[in-house]
């Protein structure tokens, strides 16, 4: 078979390959670490967490060896890690430290080699607009030239996997379907903030679905009604079982725990977005607005990993945001829209405990336009490389997900 075929032909993927499709590099990873993915049954899982608003990555992954960092942020810098303290910033290596807010959660995963960070990550979009940059990331198409505004990279990833006979089972844990998931198929969405009893019994659901037969919303109507039933049952079963463990989580932690349950049992590709990162004013340092958001995020992702149980070992979480923020603090003890940011990758079997991708020294001279972190790791190349490794994507499939992009292998898996 040629690897140069285009997408529609991928749907004719031969049966042999379909049966052996499994998480890429399983053999080599197993060889190195003795860990094995649960392949081919089920295959890998992916959760994409989008931090909307452009989170201040410089106060998450702190470049503490840079004097310029402390000079540029007189009021909001995070203090250098103190080896004697177990509450301050956590030194990850000689240059980078992790924010105290996620020390107990993401820091613990990092220590187990289940978390990695990619600084200097982002896009070539220079609008510094939240909305344009979020859209362009979710579309995942080459900059310049015509765009298909109704096609997102996770939608295309699902198409490529389904076309290859693999299990994509996508779901968005959001009230609205994100642009990242748009494409040629109807992808279900449901926020798990509040999960109640479904409003309609089976007869009523059937009548509602029939009313939309042949309508362009037909699939969305029927899959929405089905999903409500399915999720109510799944979560109710789990909560009955969990009552014995007296789980008292709430907020994002509870939501993430439910996401973990659903992804463990039914879904392979998930998406969630978290807002509240646009810290123009009073963002705080070790404590404060940003730290509060990071704490909640860290606890949620920890809960997600735990509720997956043994399936955490074949799950990957990617945390990204539209851009980083200005390296210098602004006049209101906050930060404005910047450029390069830090992506997180978490997973039970990833090559974690490392700062990955192209990097450079952090000082005044290396700032982009004398204001922001530069982008050295293009998000399409990084994610393309990750997906290629996870699902053994062939070049034509990779090109379907991220057209005109070369997947880069930054040794995530």
């Amino acid at each position, binding site marked *: 078979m040629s690897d140069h075929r285009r997408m529609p032909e991928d749907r004719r993927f031969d049966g042999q390959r379909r049966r052996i499709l499994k998480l890429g590099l399983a053999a080599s990873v197993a060889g190195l670490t003795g860990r094995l993915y649960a392949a081919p049954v089920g295959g890998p899982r992916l959760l994409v967490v989008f931090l*909307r*608003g452009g989170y201040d990555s410089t106060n998450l992954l702190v470049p503490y060896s840079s004097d310029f960092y402390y000079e540029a942020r007189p009021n909001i810098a995070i203090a250098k890690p103190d080896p004697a303290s177990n509450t301050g910033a956590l030194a990850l290596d000689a240059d980078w430290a992790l924010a105290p807010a996620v020390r107990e959660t993401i820091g613990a995963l990092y220590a187990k080699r289940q978390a990695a960070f990619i600084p200097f990550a982002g896009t070539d979009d*220079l*609008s*510094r*607009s*939240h*909305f*344009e940059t979020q859209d362009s990331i979710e579309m995942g198409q080459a900059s310049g030239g015509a765009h298909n505004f*109704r096609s997102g990279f996770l939608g295309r990833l699902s198409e490529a996997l389904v076309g290859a006979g693999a299990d994509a089972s996508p779901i*968005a844990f*959001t*009230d*609205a*379907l994100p642009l990242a998931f*748009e494409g040629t198929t*109807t*992808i*279900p*969405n*449901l*926020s798990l903030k509040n999960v109640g009893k479904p*409003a*309609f019994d089976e007869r*009523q659901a059937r*009548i*509602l679905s*029939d*009313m*939309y*037969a*042949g*309508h362009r*919303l037909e*699939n*969305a*109507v029927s*899959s*929405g*009604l089905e*999903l*409500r039933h399915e999720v109510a049952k799944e979560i109710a079963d789990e909560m009955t079982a969990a009552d014995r463990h007296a789980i008292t989580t709430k907020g994002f932690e509870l939501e993430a725990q439910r996401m973990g349950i659903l992804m463990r049992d039914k879904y392979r590709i998930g998406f969630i977005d978290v*807002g*509240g990162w*646009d810290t*123009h*004013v009073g963002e705080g340092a070790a404590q404060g607005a940003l730290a509060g958001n990071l704490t909640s995020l860290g606890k949620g992702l920890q809960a997600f990993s735990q509720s997956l149980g043994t399936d955490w070992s074949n799950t990957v979480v990617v945390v990204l945001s539209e851009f980083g923020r200005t390296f210098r603090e*602004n*006049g*209101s003890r*906050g930060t*404005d*829209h910047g450029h390069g940011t830090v992506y997180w990758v978490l997973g039970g079997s990833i090559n974690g405990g490392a700062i990955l991708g192209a990097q450079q020294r952090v000082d005044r001279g290396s700032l982009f*336009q004398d204001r922001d972190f530069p982008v050295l790791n293009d998000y399409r190349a990084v994610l393309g490389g990750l997906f290629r490794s996870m699902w053994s994507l062939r070049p034509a499939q990779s090109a379907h997900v991220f057209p005109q992009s070369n997947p880069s292998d930054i040794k995530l898996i």
Partner: protein
Amino acid sequence: MTRLAIGLAAGLILVGCTTTAKQTSTAPPLPHRDDLLWLQRVSFGLDTATIANYRRLGREGYIDSQLHPDARPPLPPAIETQIAALDVSHIDVAATLATVQAQRQAIKAMPDGADREQARKALNQQGEALAYQAARRDMLRAIYSPAQLQEEMTWFWLNHFSVYQGKANLRWLVGDYEERAIRPHVFGRFKDLVMATLEHPAMLEYLDNKQNAVGHVNENYARELMELHTLGVDGGYSQEDVQNLARILTGVGVATGAQPRLKPAMLRLYRHDGAFVFNPARHDFGTKVLLGETIPGAGFDEVDAAITRIVGRPACARFISRKLALYFVADNPPPPLVERMAQTFMHTDGDIAAVLRTLFLSKEFAAAAGEKFKDPMRFVVSSVRFAYDGRPISNTRPIINWLRSLGEASYGRQTPDGYPLTEVDWASSGQLSRRFEIARSIGAGNAGLFDAEDGDAATAAGFPQLANRLYYEAVEPFLAARTKDALNRATSQQEWNTFLLASPEFAYE
């Protein structure tokens, strides 16, 4: 089944009556389908009074009356009374802000402990109550005002110049923002609308311009003012323009107490109106270049010059015209229509009423009938208008909660882009099933719309009779076979109501 039969029978009798009335009176003829489809898109949905107005005035007469509404469009007396009783209808925003700031400081000075917590909580509840009242007033007007287009445009512009009640002191401000910055200008000159939002503390707090000062520049508002409010992200401005507009906006902020002590030369440039303040001591008086034009340091006059320059650009006329067409016409508005609207905008110095007239009387608007998916506000308000047809509700809380659960809460958009306006943003599988649940709440009539507002005893109960004259006149003749089939399978009037409100015909306008 019995109830359904009764409902249908009553409806048939009504149809009979209508026919008789038509033969014996001089009332204008029933509107055609085209008229109904046109009318429901120039309103938050059909009710009997709206159809009667249209019959009386005809299409052009109707649109002109809608574009030039009375100063105080008449509401049902029961609704008028409810609105008049709200605190939000009477407060002075500058005084309120000053009180809130004083209370915050007092709380700060209290010793840690239960009393302080109590005081903090009480203050927050006060703010939330006020924001809720603002949402309630807005909703009552949307449902009952005969000036329906004014209500739709108030929603549209409030969404365009979106603010979020959850930030800072916005809870105390959103009602006044809607009432004084948005509502008076919805059919006026676009520049006046921009200036009214720019001079309102809600916007200045929300987009951080109250922190924007010489030497401490905060570019948040400057960027969104061009990207979201006027030019659009591709509107031909640069990062330098953002920075320079931010400098122009330095010193534009919110009054924080007594007037600052200023030298006479500065004092002449000081401006103050309610809670809005321009403090020249915080302004950057250097020369700026904005969109290729040099703007010398002059104080607040720079802001006026900058906004004039921005709203005079063809990019602004096109951006605003396209967004209006997106809201009223189609998810992909026909470019020739947008261009004609933009020409009207440019020839009339941004006269919004003129631009809307171009839109509503266009052939493109007529041709797009029945194709626009209702966003949650349109869905919920049109459902209530249709279900209760002018009958005054007493409890607005369920409606406000429905909008929240559908993802379109009043003053609830956290980001400054406002709620999206296209089908794909509101018609995902999860949103549709949620919408059907709301349809059920309305159809079953057990949501408590006729309870007392504080949740006490119900003053009336029962489900609405959707199979009414309005239904037989304006809806039933145009239903698809599948929808009729679903309605026939209903086993109760409540279920019948639910299916009708959940039908494809009701999802689009």
